[in-house]
């Protein structure tokens, strides 16, 4: 089986509008969560989020593109451009046919649905713009990346709620590992920060009105974010042969289903995904130095996740670090695993561990080293990225330092 490495990274989210800016903000423990700004926000009971501000899409895309690109597609294209540029790859000839795109999103063009429902229901209009469907479809971002970069191999979009990006990156990894493709553009994006998008989440009563404080005893819920994280996954030999800069290795992954409850997490399901990723990658649990937690800041997730980690790692659970960067960028739903992978890359490549900010009170049910409030410098060989979705669908990726 072939080995897979990452040779490009791009991102946009509340912490920054590039991968480097995002990692820098993570290092500094910055908080990107603040007051939401959009129409009718005063009618929401939840008015905070990790919103991308100062993003001028009109300056980046022309008028024709703007009519076709929902905000989730705009985010995706910007991050993909950055990742591909970093990789130095140009997709022509046979490489183009051997390269594809697998992306994750939970909601796709949510603001396009929202704007057009508003137009026909609230404003009573009887005609919508002809591009509503191609703009809102979940695979729109994937298709536009494939068109923009001439990627003609296997391409599709995965939608598994909060695990969408991790499932997508797992599939991209698998395709290169098994020889179906040489290069895959992968990751995910989300843009649900509009009236309808936040209103829907409000209904579940799991949102915090003031902050995302994962693992802290006084945590009171999740905070939504938005943005995209896109990576270039490449066959290791292919990358070496062209002298590419390698950010890290993708060592393995695993997926599992709780088969239990549509919203409540399961310790067993999470533990099977974590231990599965270790065995898939051939990694001994003692090698794991850092876990980027799913860490939503809800009462249920954080204690279940800590229990799963304790089960899988035994005594080593007390030696490893586990943090939730959602405290800084919010929960990007289908795009979250992609942006969080940056924290894992930073851990294995740079030896910098992103903190869990907003941490105020120890919780005996989350008694692990959650890297409270301040980043740490230390060498890490292996990092895991957890994603446990509503619907009980779990996906965990393992990254290894590349020497």
């Amino acid at each position: 089986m072939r080995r897979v490495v990452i040779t490009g990274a791009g991102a946009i989210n509340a912490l920054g509008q590039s991968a480097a800016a995002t990692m820098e903000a993570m290092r500094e423990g910055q908080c990107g969560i603040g007051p939401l700004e959009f129409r009718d926000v005063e009618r929401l009971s939840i008015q905070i989020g990790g919103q991308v501000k100062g993003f001028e899409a009109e300056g980046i895309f022309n008028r024709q593109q703007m009519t076709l690109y929902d905000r989730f597609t705009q985010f995706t294209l910007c991050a993909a451009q950055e990742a591909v540029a970093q990789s130095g790859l140009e997709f022509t000839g046979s490489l183009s046919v051997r390269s594809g795109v697998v992306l994750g999103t939970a909601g796709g063009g949510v603001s396009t649905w929202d704007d057009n429902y508003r137009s026909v229901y609230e404003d009573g209009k009887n005609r919508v713009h002809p591009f509503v469907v191609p703009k809102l479809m979940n695979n729109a971002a994937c298709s536009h990346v494939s068109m923009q970069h001439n990627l003609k191999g296997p391409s599709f979009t995965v939608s598994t709620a909060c695990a969408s990006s991790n499932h997508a990156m797992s599939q991209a990894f698998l395709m290169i590992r098994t020889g179906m493709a040489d290069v895959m553009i992968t990751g995910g994006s989300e843009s649900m920060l509009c009236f309808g998008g936040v209103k829907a989440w409000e209904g579940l009563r799991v949102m915090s009105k003031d902050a995302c404080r994962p693992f802290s005893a006084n945590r009171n819920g999740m905070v939504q974010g938005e943005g995209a994280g896109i990576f270039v996954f490449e066959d290791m030999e292919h990358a070496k042969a062209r002298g590419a800069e390698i950010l890290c290795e993708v060592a393995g992954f695993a997926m599992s289903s709780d088969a239990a409850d549509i919203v409540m997490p399961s310790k067993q399901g999470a533990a099977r995904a974590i231990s599965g990723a270790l065995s898939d990658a051939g990694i001994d649990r003692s090698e794991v130095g850092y876990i980027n937690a799913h860490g939503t800041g809800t009462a249920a997730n954080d204690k279940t996740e800590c229990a799963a980690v304790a089960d899988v790692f035994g005594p080593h659970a007390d030696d490893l670090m586990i943090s939730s960067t959602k405290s800084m960028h919010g929960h990007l739903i289908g795009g979250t695993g992609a942006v969080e992978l940056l924290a894992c890359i930073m851990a294995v490549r740079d030896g910098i561990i992103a903190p869990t900010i907003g941490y105020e009170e120890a919780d005996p049910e989350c008694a692990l080293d959650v890297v409270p409030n301040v980043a740490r410098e230390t060498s890490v060989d292996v990092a895991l990225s957890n994603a446990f979705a509503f619907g009980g669908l779990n996906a965990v990726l393992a990254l290894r330092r590349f020497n």
Partner: protein
Amino acid sequence: MSIRDRVFSIIAEQAMLEVSDVKGESTLESLGIDSLGLVESIFAIEEEFDLTIPFNANAPDDSDFDISNVDTIVAGIERLIALKS
């Protein structure tokens, strides 16, 4: 602005051209407007004149609306506006 001028300006915007580059005998194809651009132009014209244009992208030739060139489009719209009033 006359109906003709308004249609010319919509088509020019769609084609990303100056209005003076759009001629009555121009076909949409010659102006670089593809099939997506065509449905978008029809949408823009419907919005501008508050009309419903009988156009089905599956069978453009069978539609009761002639899109052969800019002149026939203008004539079709003038007819629909006359019918409306």
